[in-house]
């Protein structure tokens, strides 16, 4: 899990079947689009969201759900370089970019 910080968080994981990067969206759905991710600023909401992501049903769908920091208010995006690379794909293969 990312270091504790006050930044708003999203939940990300890799999809079980193919390893694709996914984000927890509304209604407990996993989406490949970061734009669909539920962003939470409140610690209580984050815990509930993580608990939900770590439920047995979810863990048969995804692997290793974690909370990540986000940045930006109107158009939030992953804050760390690692998560930016996960979102966009390898920086050295723009032809394989996810977005």
């Amino acid at each position, binding site marked *: 899990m990312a270091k504790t910080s006050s930044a708003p968080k999203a939940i990300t994981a890799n999809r079980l*079947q*193919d*390893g694709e990067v996914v984000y927890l969206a509304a209604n407990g759905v996993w989406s490949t689009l970061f734009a669909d991710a539920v962003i939470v600023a409140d610690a209580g909401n984050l815990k509930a969201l993580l608990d939900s992501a770590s439920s047995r049903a979810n863990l048969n769908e995804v*692997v290793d759900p974690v909370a990540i920091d986000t940045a930006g208010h109107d158009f939030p995006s992953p804050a760390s370089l690692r998560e930016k*690379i996960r979102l966009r794909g390898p920086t050295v*293969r723009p032809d394989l970019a996810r977005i």
Partner: protein
Amino acid sequence: MYSYDTFDQTLVEQRAAEFRAQVARRLSGDLTEEHFRPLRLLNGLYLQLHAYMLRVAIPYGTLSSRQLHMLADIATKYDRGYGHFTTRQNIQYNWIKLEESPDILDDLAAVEMHAIQTSGNVIRNVTADHFAGVIPNEADDPRITCEIIRQWSTLHPEFSFLPRKFKIAVTGAAEDRAAIRFHDIGIRIRRDTAGVLVNDIYVGGGMGRTPFVGPLVRESLPESELLSYLEAVLRVYNRYGRRDNIYKARIKILVDALGVDEFSRQIELEFAQTRVEGLDLPQEEVQRIRAFFAEPPYETSLPSELAKHHEVSTPAFHDWLRASVLPHKAPGYAIVTISLKPIGGIPGDASTQQMHAIASLAERLSLDEIRVTHEQNLVLPHVRQIDLHEVWKALVAEGLATPNVGLVSDIISCPGLDYCSLANARSIPIAQRISERFAELKQQHDIGPLKIKISGCINGCGHHHAGHIGILGVDRKGEEFYQIMLGGSGDETASIGELLGPGFSSDTVVDAVANVVKTYLDLRHPGEIFLYAVRRLGLVPFKERLYARS
């Protein structure tokens, strides 16, 4: 080359079938990730940043054309059209789907390959000198020893849950191209004064968080007692290696903690037991394995064309000959190293098309054999000198004739943060930018032999500790920073690089490397290569220039 017998073939087929059932149970939810993770890792399947990554074992870096064709097909069928050759002479695929991974293992088994023991706390794929069996003046072909170790260590029940992973490398030459002293066990095969084959055993080398050059723990071990000796080393490690702290679990920590003398004493005590347990192979079995590595049917009376090529070749062909071609032990043949380091490219990556092209080339002009080097290049080990121009033209057509082997742009790089879930910083873009900075071949020739090795984290898959210039990527408050070390070497004069000083940002690290190279050019003695200049000069003159206030 070694060829599977029924036992080998059954083993890999059964393993693939077993994994298919395990994957099905995971996908159905019968297995949790906690239970499944160690099972997939035992089959080389990792979960990386973007997808699953499959690491396929290439025992001692030797491939047939048929096998390389299959690796190329897998890249197309299950991945995104390329593979990455690693510093452990393996290949990795970066975009694997879990649900398709059992099919890949089936395809691998069809060509006598697998992904067993490419991960986990076991004895990993054994590596060797990539010029094994073809370089002149070799005491013995190390692949014979490697194959014996492969069979001994595969699914070894006593060593399936070691404190940590365990890596063995073997060379049969005086020149060390396998970095044996940076392995848990390094084996140097040589002939004693009576001409008998013996093994010098180094234990406790390694890179990573705590680098060590492995000390010699047994000199002149009889060839016939190798397995019982290795068994003794592994037993001592299995018994006393730390399991409470992952960072202190490698055998190098145990050797350091006990001291070489005490560690050697412990091994000898154990060896007294193992050598009478009947673990060593009967000579008939050794000879059976040796027969697989008998010399291929070299043509005799071939003309020696190397000198002639050098005299009359075009400049581009001449540059390639100079960088990529070495004399072979068989008259009229040559060893060709194929650079997987195009200027600005990704070190170690090869496309499906390139792999097929190399496999076809090997089939036609290299007696059906390819080698993978730990420096992330490939080798055609048996090329007739009269075919060199044809080989070169074929490689040029595939973008595989960059004449930079052994030069500053022939950089080792781990996948780094572009792919790896352990990485703290990107490695590949730094390698790309350095190779672009030194792209001009005349400049590279002027600099001479120089090995740059880059890792994106302290685990050191990019061998930064053994680089003449080593670069380690670190995370500093969310930013990529790069530490530079000088004077490392993985060869027979093995040494660990020393840290120069404070790190550099991604924007400034290439300039810093250029500064170091410039200092070398200014201060070297005539003919003195970079590594020896650093050893003579020490770090001070490099530090003074690099950190001088402008």
